[in-house]
């Protein structure tokens, strides 16, 4: 696996790349077409930036408007090492925090570039009109986030993702207006078209008419987001799916870090069997909220009636130097440990308390309302509880996938001309993502990296023969996509797609979630195989082949059933604990993760071999030249 890391010292690599990247003459740019799938932060920013340079862009999303991509739901903030607080921040500090936060399972060069480009993103967003929080002096405000000891998080109340996305969406709309971007909403990618080893187009389904359509291009960008929805109950939107990346995977793009899934510590707990999603409460709440459970297992008293000495502030107890701001993987696991030990609270005993009484006492209710008002309002809307007067109930929930399609330093996958941006790729977060780094990575990929690396690739394609949608590869891909749809519609069994999705999700939560074991993973692989067979025997999709959300769901669940098995294989093969991947067999006496740098200091990239063949593992060794590998401690 060649990651194509540029030569030179770490701090100079990105400059070296930019200085040597090939360019396309402005007159030639409009002859080059790029397809962008997904209109979240990564997709919209990439599509707009390429169109601004003069390229022709075809952009696709499954939502009814590109403004609705799930980046919109990110709450807490976006990191950048501006050092506006003069608290010791720097590019290197941010790089180190991110490498350490990812438990030393990411590439130094990628992470350094992420930190290096972070400052420019804040400049870009402010210029677009993103209303970040301000000091009374008019300067930008910052707050702290988990896993770091400086204040480098920029925020727009609890709606930072929405505001950043609107900035990117508006930039995209501007390019639609100029005619350089053709936007196709309510379209879902069904297959990637590869011609002589290069990505040359896609097959999509118009979700209103049901018709399959072909689009050809000189390069294809997938920015289709993560696959946390595979757990069914997750913080993700209902439509989030892995289908675009999975179908590219089956065309030859490797999947990497597949089982590295972040379980977010502060979501609303499950309250019943009909539940369709778990609502996230921003991690920023942990700046002022204190997490605790009753010291006595099974204590049923109202939280306000439990006196201070009978509360266990377990994060402050176990991790005194980071306390309630311990990273997400550690906080989630600590919550699970307490819940499993019988200290869980709430009707289903599946939650812990997040308590603001101390912060309200110190800062006043108004200040807390200004910082988190919309989150408290959202909490009240969903639960009917006033969190100013009593603690919130929170619980861990599947959230972000660090894994995704393998990409090299230029964000190109193992298929030439197929670029993968944002959460859809595996690249920058290692085995655990720090809070407020996902908005950052999506934006940096789309605004600042792809606009250099994609033209570099296109410069080499200028003289290549143009592939049109009449090419036999399009005939084949469309025919296969149609066959798949016909198959799903024709099973006519007795169980809806949701049945299989919920069962898959439950199985993955139990065996490939916060904690994993050899025995559990082997069982999961077996049972997912059985569930998949049952799916193709008993699935029932009603309706026709026009607007049909059941058909859409079935296609996504079919992919999830294959991806779920690979997640378990990936987790099984990694016989160590690192970041979000916690193998019960590999832990210290006090329950902390035990990494194995001797045998597993690599990224696992998996190659698809066919439906009934096992994947082949291609390890990409991680070489650390700048940082010394150390035990990740937040104690």
């Amino acid at each position, binding site marked *: 696996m060649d990651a194509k890391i540029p030569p030179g010292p770490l701090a100079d690599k990105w400059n070296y790349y930019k200085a040597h990247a090939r360019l396309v003459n402005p007159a030639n740019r409009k002859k080059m077409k790029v397809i962008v799938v997904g209109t979240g932060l990564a997709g919209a920013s990439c599509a707009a*930036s390429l169109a*601004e340079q003069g390229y022709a862009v075809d952009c696709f999303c499954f*939502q*009814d*408007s590109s*403004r*609705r991509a*799930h980046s*919109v*739901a990110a709450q807490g903030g976006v990191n950048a090492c*501006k050092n*506006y607080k003069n608290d010791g921040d720097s590019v290197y500090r941010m790089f180190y925090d991110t490498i350490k936060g990812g438990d030393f399972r990411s590439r130094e060069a990628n992470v350094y570039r992420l930190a290096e480009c972070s400052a420019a993103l804040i*400049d*870009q967003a*402010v*210029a*677009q*009109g993103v*209303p*970040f929080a*301000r000091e*009374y*002096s008019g*300067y*930008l405000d910052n707050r702290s986030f988990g896993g770091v000891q400086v204040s480098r998080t920029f925020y727009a*109340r609890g*709606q930072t993702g*929405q*505001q950043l996305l*609107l900035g990117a969406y*508006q*930039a995209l*709309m*501007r390019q*639609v*207006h100029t005619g350089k971007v053709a936007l196709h*909403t309510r379209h879902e990618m069904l297959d990637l078209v590869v011609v002589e080893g290069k990505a040359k187009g896609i097959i999509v389904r118009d979700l*209103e008419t049901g018709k399959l359509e072909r689009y050809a291009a000189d390069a294809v960008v997938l920015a289709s987001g993560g696959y946390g929805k595979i757990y069914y109950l997750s913080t993700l*939107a*209902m439509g989030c799916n892995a289908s675009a990346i999975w179908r590219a995977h089956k065309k030859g793009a490797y999947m990497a870090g597949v089982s590295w899934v972040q379980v977010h510590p502060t979501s609303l707990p499950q*309250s*019943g069997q*009909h539940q*369709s*999603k778990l*609502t996230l409460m921003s991690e920023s709440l942990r700046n002022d909220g204190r997490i605790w459970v009753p010291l006595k297992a099974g204590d049923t008293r109202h939280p306000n009636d439990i006196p201070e000495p009978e509360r266990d502030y377990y994060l402050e107890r176990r991790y005194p130097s980071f306390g309630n701001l311990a990273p997400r993987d550690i906080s989630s696991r600590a919550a699970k440990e307490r819940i499993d030990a019988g200290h869980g609270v709430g009707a289903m005993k599946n939650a812990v308390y997040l308590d603001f009484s101390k912060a309200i006492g110190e800062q006043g209710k108004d200040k807390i309302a200004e910082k988190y008002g919309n989150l408290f309002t*959202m909490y009240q*809307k*969903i639960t*009917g509880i006033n969190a100013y007067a009593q603690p919130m109930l929170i619980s861990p929930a599947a959230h972000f996938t660090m894994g995704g399609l393998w990409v090299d330093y230029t964000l190109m996958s193992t298929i030439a001309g197929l670029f993968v941006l944002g959460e859809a790729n595996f690249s920058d977060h290692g085995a655990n993502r720090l809070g407020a780094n996902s908005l950052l990575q999506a934006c940096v990929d789309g*605004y600042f990296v792809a*606009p250099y690396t994609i033209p570099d690739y296109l410069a080499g394609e200028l003289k290549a023969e143009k592939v049109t949608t009449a090419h036999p590869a399009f005939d084949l891909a469309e025919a296969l996509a149609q066959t798949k749809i016909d198959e799903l519609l024709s099973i006519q069994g*007795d169980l*809806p797609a949701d049945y299989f999705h919920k069962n898959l999700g439950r199985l993955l939560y139990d065996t490939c979630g916060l904690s994993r074991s050899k025995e559990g993973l082997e069982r999961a692989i077996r049972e997912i195989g059985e569930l998949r067979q049952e799916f193709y025997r008993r699935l029932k999709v*009603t*309706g026709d082949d*026009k*607007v*049909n*959300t059941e058909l859409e769901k079935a296609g996504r669940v079919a992919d999830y059933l294959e991806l779920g098995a690979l997640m378990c294989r990936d987790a099984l093969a990694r016989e160590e604990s690192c970041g979000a991947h916690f193998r019960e067999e590999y832990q210290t006496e006090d329950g902390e993760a035990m990494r194995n740098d001797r045998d597993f200091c690599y990224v696992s990239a998996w190659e698809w071999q066919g439906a009934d063949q096992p994947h082949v593992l291609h390890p990409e060794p991680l070489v650390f030249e700048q940082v010394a590998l150390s035990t990740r401690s937040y104690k």
Partner: protein
Amino acid sequence: MKIHLKIWRQDERDGPGGMVSYTLDDVTEDMSFLEMLDALNGVLIGKGERVIEFDHDCREGICGQCGLMINGRAHGPLPHVTTCQLHMRSFRDGDTIYIEPFRAAAFPVLRDLKIDRSAFDRIIQSGGYIAAGTGSAPEANSILVAHDTAEAAFDAAACIGCGACVATCKNSSAALFVSAKTVHLSLLPQGKLEAPQRVNAMIAQMNAEQFGPCSNTEACEVECPQQISVLHIARMNWAFNKSRLLGRKG
């Protein structure tokens, strides 16, 4: 709870439609309104019928994709929530609930409760942005924005584009949606330069779509999930008239 439902069913764009009755047992208070529809769809699949199509995605009130008229009110009986944030605890055993799509000439129905809101996108395309291309931005702290100005801009920028304002307005006016964007951008120093052109272009596009005029009933603010203030409409009108008086139409 047992809930009786009367739901708009329509096969295709421009096709005929009508209300169809359903009864759903075993509805619980902690179900969200959309989870109740999920449960109904599960029953319909069991019977081999086509499911009820409705738009939704994030189910936490921020993406703006869901939106139903519930007993004649946009997003249902509670003020300032989206449909996905409404829970069945707002209803009683035996209630009859009427569910229709957001209705407006500019929002054609695609199927059942799904609608086409691309008119909103076209309004933004006409000028709802600050033309700051990637790479051209100055150092962020070189643009000072007073705390209260940033907060006021945020209040307007918080619009989720759901269309409840249009659906609830007797004229199907998009004035609240359009004004939220013009005010968000023109309050900020970086967005002032293009303000006259922006407000003219966006209003022209709003008029070109089939939205009606605003007659200041203020019904939109009552239903807006983000509580966008109707004062923005006054600010937009002021900016529009000022640009015309000064001859700066863009």
